[in-house]
């Protein structure tokens, strides 16, 4: 199963689905000597909620701007519904964009802002008014129709920007960090609204974010970017459970990494000599691996189980608890192995006051299943 994921991950979204809404083919964008986007290829399918995720400066905005038509790729092609639009002007693309700064026209009312795009396509007055009304209802800003942008709160402006971008019923909507300016509460609420709206209208959403949690909650698939390249493209769950590299594993959630070398393969399990842990570890992976090859085992803190005294398990390690962080729903423990390496694991706090809670300096034994961890070669 690990074997498949590198090559077929793109097509795996909706097997046998129609042709992609957007196809990005080997697109590169350079500014002077910097490669803002470096040989990116992606297929995005109709109806997807697709996220571009990555740290600051990795080229997310640049990629999005090339889709909208504000930047021309230095090389490569962009196809929308099979048609090459690489050289097509922004005003002729069936794409609309919601800007990070919202970019509401300051001299127009909310209603005029939303109507702007419809006017450009020459929609008759009555139909236009109806559509504007619909959009304002959709994002719940009807009472503010006659206000100017500066008379709105941040959250209201964001809704206007969304309504304006949606008004033309584009086939594809691009969103550049749409929730960046909102506080946490409003942000979470808006995330669900966005997903709802997207499902109701059936528009393909491509959203830029550097917030991994946001990407996880909303997306059908995530493209994780690194220095202008796409590191991994997968649905959130796959990205979390089966990162293909140390970078991907570290970017999303927390992870324990064990560096080692392959000893041998036993069926679909790989045995790994790990000096840091002072043990032989097992990981499920059916890829062919030569013995002696360096390999990294990645295991998420919540996959690690505490063994009862006398109990045996795979990937068994014993150590001393050095740190405890109580987060309410779960607690995070830092276990120090004899060699000094630290391992993080979590336990959910099932009981309000556990009878025998784990304490500092307690010696415990942990274990995890070979199929709950992953092998990273990069």
């Amino acid at each position, binding site marked *: 199963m690990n074997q498949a994921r590198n090559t077929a991950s793109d097509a795996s979204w909706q097997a046998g689905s129609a042709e992609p809404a957007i196809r990005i083919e080997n697109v590169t964008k350079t500014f002077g000597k910097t490669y803002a986007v470096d040989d990116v290829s992606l297929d995005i399918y109709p109806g997807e909620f697709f996220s571009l995720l990555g740290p600051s400066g990795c080229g997310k905005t640049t990629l999005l701007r090339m889709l*909208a*038509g*504000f930047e021309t790729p230095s090389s490569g092609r962009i196809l929308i519904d099979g048609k090459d639009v690489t050289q097509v*002007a*922004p*005003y002729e693309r069936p*794409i*609309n*964009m919601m*800007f*990070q*700064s919202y*970019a509401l*026209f*300051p*001299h127009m009312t909310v209603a005029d802002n939303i109507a*702007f*795009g419809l006017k*450009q*396509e020459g929609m008759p007055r009555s139909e236009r008014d109806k559509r504007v009304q619909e959009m304002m209802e959709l994002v719940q800003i009807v009472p503010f129709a006659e206000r*100017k942008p*500066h008379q709105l709160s941040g959250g209201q402006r964001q809704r206007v920007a969304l309504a*304006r971008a949606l008004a*033309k019923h584009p086939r594809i909507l691009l969103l550049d960090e749409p929730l960046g300016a909102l506080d946490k509460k409003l942000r979470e609420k808006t995330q669900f609204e966005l997903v709802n709206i997207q499902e109701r209208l059936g528009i393909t959403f491509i959203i830029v974010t550097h917030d991994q949690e946001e990407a996880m909650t909303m997306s059908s698939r995530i493209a994780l970017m690194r220095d202008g390249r796409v590191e991994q493209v997968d649905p959130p769950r796959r990205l979390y459970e089966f990162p293909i590299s140390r970078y991907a594993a570290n970017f999303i959630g927390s992870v324990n990494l064990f560096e080692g070398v392959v000893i041998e393969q036993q069926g679909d399990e790989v045995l790994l000599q790990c000096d840091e842990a002072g043990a032989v570890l097992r990981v499920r992976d059916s890829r062919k691996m030569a013995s002696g090859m360096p390999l990294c085992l990645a295991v998420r803190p919540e996959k690690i189980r505490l063994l009862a005294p006398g109990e045996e398990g795979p990937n068994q390690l014993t150590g001393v608890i050095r740190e405890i962080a109580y987060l309410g729903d779960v607690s995070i423990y830092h276990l120090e192995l004899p060699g000094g390496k630290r391992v993080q694991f979590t336990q959910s706090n099932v009981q309000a006051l556990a009878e025998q809670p784990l304490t500092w300096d307690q010696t415990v034994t942990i274990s995890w299943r070979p199929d709950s961890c992953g092998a990273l070669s990069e």
Partner: protein
Amino acid sequence: MTRRSPLLLSVLLFGYAFLYGPIISLMVYSFNESRLVTVWGGFSTKWYFELLDNDQILGAAWLSIKIAAVNASVAVVLGTLAAMALVRYGRFRGRATLETMVTAPMVMPDVIIGLSLLLLFVSMERLTGWPQGRGQTTITLAHITFSMAYVTVVVRSRLAHMDRSLEEAALDLGARPMKVFFAITLPIIAPALAAGWLLAFTLSMDDLVIASFVSGPGATTLPMVVYSSVRLGVSPEINALATIIVVIVSLAVAAAGLLMYRQEKRQQD
């Protein structure tokens, strides 16, 4: 209330007196009955009526207003184009040089501008037959060359502060570049255009040196009339004229200020 230092207050008063004293005394003496400018002979508005009968002054005023209005309008168009090019054209070779060159007329001595334009007009007439002689047209052209620099500076700063994504958003919503300019960019930079227009108008109304160089026998602007008549002795009539100009200019400046202030406030929350 905080106690203000009396020293500071007197310095302030002195400063204002220094700035406005001459203008106020000029205004007061425009209501002087006596023909002698320095002797107060009672209140009268007769100089204002006399002004109305002075065809030379009225003609010059009308000419100045015409020149200033045409100059301001053309300078706003050219200055805006120049500002757009400087702000929007991206990076190109020699951009910095070009930017400095646009502002050169602001620091160049008027005498040099006037002289060089005079030479230009003369040789142009010899080569092409246009402009025929010197007068209203040449003064207007000369004023446009230096007013444009001021307009460019004013509009450029406004454009540079304008959020680029507003234009991109309009493009994205299907508006063509021309439409974007007229529907989005222009309304947003309008206060700067208004300020630029007023500035150009005032500069033109104010100019004596350059106009003297490029003017011909038929065209005498208001500053030229004032200047030549003052050389024969200050007459209360000129005081009256100056008072009218001061009042009009103050009103215009106040209106422009109010307009820009309101717009500014509306645009930043």
